[in-house]
């Protein structure tokens, strides 16, 4: 009997080791696939133009081959031109704009999403399902179509003017993206999973609908809300087309727009990928710092909701 137990345990352990090896091998492979673009960005940011074009590509560089001027030239002051007295790539200006836009958009989206999801999940009002169906229907309209209509709206509201102010450009860049039907749908599903008994109990205690939302619904659905915040801020961070369309002045641009054209020679059409990747690396660093700082919260949110960006 004990022999059988030992054999079973051995088989179990062998199976477990095999399963662990397979899991870690798969995870390592996925990690490599995810990390390679970051490594390549870093590597390219240290290459000269010719090293970049070498075939087969150089997979690593000796420190003596590092072209650190790709980084230093980003901060070199321009003597004249629209950016006179400023660096070639006004990194900190662009970064500030991106951070501000990301925070405003994410805060706005989170608030509207929570309120809308709560209304569709909990409150009973006439035509609720029809309105929700119409909202879902808008998800099937390609996003590009909204660029034109949003642009017309922004222009007619007087937010796209020749003497556009920083306040106007912030409204123009953020307001059209302060709602998300997908996130509303996503959070509504989470809200609907919360038992009705909690609602009735709260009502018996004299809690208002808004109080119930604040004290019960939001804490219970916080992993989903964290996920929404993460996904939305990532989207806002990398937004490209809309910010490029509604910004009238160079100093209002986001890093994504700055990265696109700042390093291409207009005559030959060649892009200085070394400088571009150096700038991209600098843009990625704040995100990495953010990730490592809030790693636990992010992982909790992602693992509970089962959604990843």
């Amino acid at each position, binding site marked *: 009997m004990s022999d059988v137990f030992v054999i079973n345990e051995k088989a179990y352990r062998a199976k477990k080791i095999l399963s662990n090896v397979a899991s870690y091998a798969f995870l390592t492979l996925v990690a490599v696939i995810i990390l390679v673009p970051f490594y390549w960005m870093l590597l390219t940011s240290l290459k000269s133009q010719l090293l970049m074009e070498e075939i087969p590509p150089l997979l690593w560089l000796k420190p003596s081959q590092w072209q650190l001027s790709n980084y230093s030239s980003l901060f070199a002051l321009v003597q*004249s031109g629209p950016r006179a007295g400023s660096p070639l790539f006004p990194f900190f200006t662009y970064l500030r704009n991106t951070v501000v836009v990301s925070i405003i958009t994410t805060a706005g989206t989170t608030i509207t999403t929570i309120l809308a999801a709560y209304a569709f999940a909990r409150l009973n009002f006439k035509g609720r399902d029809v309105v929700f169906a119409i909202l879902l229907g808008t998800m*099937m309209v390609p996003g590009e179509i909204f660029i034109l209509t949003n642009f017309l709206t922004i222009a007619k509201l007087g937010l796209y003017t020749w003497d556009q102010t920083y306040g106007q450009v912030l409204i123009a860049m953020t307001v059209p993206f302060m709602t998300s039907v997908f996130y509303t749908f996503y959070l509504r599903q989470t809200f609907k999973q919360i038992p009705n008994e909690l609602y009735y109990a709260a009502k018996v205690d004299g809690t208002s609908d808004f109080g119930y939302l604040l004290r019960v619904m939001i804490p219970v659905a916080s992993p989903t809300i964290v996920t929404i915040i993460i996904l939305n801020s990532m989207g806002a961070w990398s937004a490209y087309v809309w910010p490029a369309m509604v910004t009238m002045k160079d100093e209002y641009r986001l890093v994504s*727009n700055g990265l696109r054209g700042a390093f291409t020679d207009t*005559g030959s059409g*060649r892009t200085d990928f070394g400088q571009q990747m150096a700038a991209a690396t600098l843009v990625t660093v704040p995100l990495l710092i953010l990730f490592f700082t809030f790693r636990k919260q992010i992982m909790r949110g992602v693992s509970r909701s089962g959604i990843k960006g």
Partner: protein
Amino acid sequence: MKKLLLLLVSVILTFSIIGCVEIVTTTTEEEWTTEATTTTNTTTQFTGSTTEGTGTTTDALTTTTTTRPVVYGDLPDEEVEITFWHIYGSGKTALLDQIIAEFEGMFPNVTITSTSQSDYNTLREKIQLGITVGMVPTLALGYPDHFANYIDAGAAYSLDPLISSDIVYEITDSASSIFGETVTTSLDLTDFVPSYLAENNQYTGHHYYSVPYSKSTETMAVNVDVLKAHITEIRALGITISDNGYLSHEVPLTLNQLNQLNAIMVSSLVDGAGDPITDIANNKCAYLVNYDSSGNMFINMSRELGAPYTNTSGDILVDNAATLSMLNYIDMMFENRTMVLPIVWDQSYGSTNFIYGDVCMSVGSTAGVNYNIPANNLPADLAKLKFGAFATDFVPVPQAVTANNQAVTVYAGTTPYSFTGNLSAVQQGPNIGIFKAASSAERIYAWLFIKYLTNTDNTARWAMDTGYLPARLSAYTSEVPIQLTGTFSTTYNDFLQISLDFWAADGNPGWNEADERWDFLYKSMVANIARYQNEYYQYDPAFAAGSNSAGSATARVEAGYCLENIITGAYSPATALQAMKSQLTW
């Protein structure tokens, strides 16, 4: 039922959103007629050519000289704000800002705000969106296909009334740097490179919606050291070459000569994988000529060999026997290693393998000249430079014929292909135009600014400072000194002379190492080549996508794919041509 409802709602939403957009569609012809009637003293007449819009230079205007009484007018004296959108980064805006400041000194009531929109796509998209709400700049840079779209949307302003106006304006503002002088909006178009003009009035009615600004072309970089090693054999072919290996800079090599040079300068060695390699010991390259842009190669070869490609009406003309013959000929040149494309090495540009010594010659943009100089682009592993840091020279792009409308027979093996050829070199680069939304005062000052920006001295300054080519012929004899570095200034004429002196001394000009002429030698070389080639520049007709064919920008891309499909062996010439046609017409 719910799904059906959802589908219905989404369809209704999509159409209602599209329907909300109101796009101004004023016809440009009406605008021109209105403007033309207000301008009475017209001296310049615009004539279309009989061979309409095929990309040749015959669409230029004819000017008749008539004696008219001088009409004096007053320039608007209100404060005028002009917005100028371009794509220049900080490297090129220093001079632009200087020119703007000079202009504002001439017209103190004018303020010009120039803004870089990063890249051409963003610039075009912002303008196209801006057209829907009347928020377009006063003037902007753009390629011909951009202006074709603006014209379609009724937003581009025909410059003809300004160009042909005889009104003379006296500068009465005492704060002006030209106080007491007179200016006029009329423009002597005969001073511009004819093909640049043809490109800018190729649109319906042959009106000018833009004028040339930052232009470039292609030239061919050659490995002087390899040429020098084969001087005797090259001279035996009747090709002019100096003792130190410099070819003629005025007379282009012909395609037949390239095939003859192939026998002398191209290696027959292959590596273990069967890929051609350079024969260093015998000074022979793996291939003869690398062509940077496959699209340009297709289009330019079409023009050289008289094979129809497109026209300004937007017709895709490639489905013809001459184009197929051309592709068969090119296929043979790919096969025998006379021609090659960078895609063979997975490269985007030809300069890398030129520097490495894989090819002896490389055709590329005048704006990318420095990438062809080995000493300025040393790789990590110097052994990759098969001929070391060799000397580079620049010559005109090879031609099929030596004069226009010349019959030529080329051979693919023993198969002869006969064409009626023309001289051709591509012209590239943006133009500058004004938008209709501007007020009449803004239009006048914007136009005066364009005139100032493109006058003889400024086009020369711009060319030397940026590496672009002058828009005006008179720039080539400009005597205005330009400060190129802190210690070096030169006129455009002297700038051109740098390479002329170098060539006259057969590559040994006797300059000391610190002489700053070395820094401008290669730019000077391509400027001279461009000058020789500008007599046969050809532009690419611009047109937007139509109901049954793609636009000119897509046609160029597909032309490039066609040649890449042939060289990679993916398609035969006939199949590649059919694939191209099926992508461009429907």
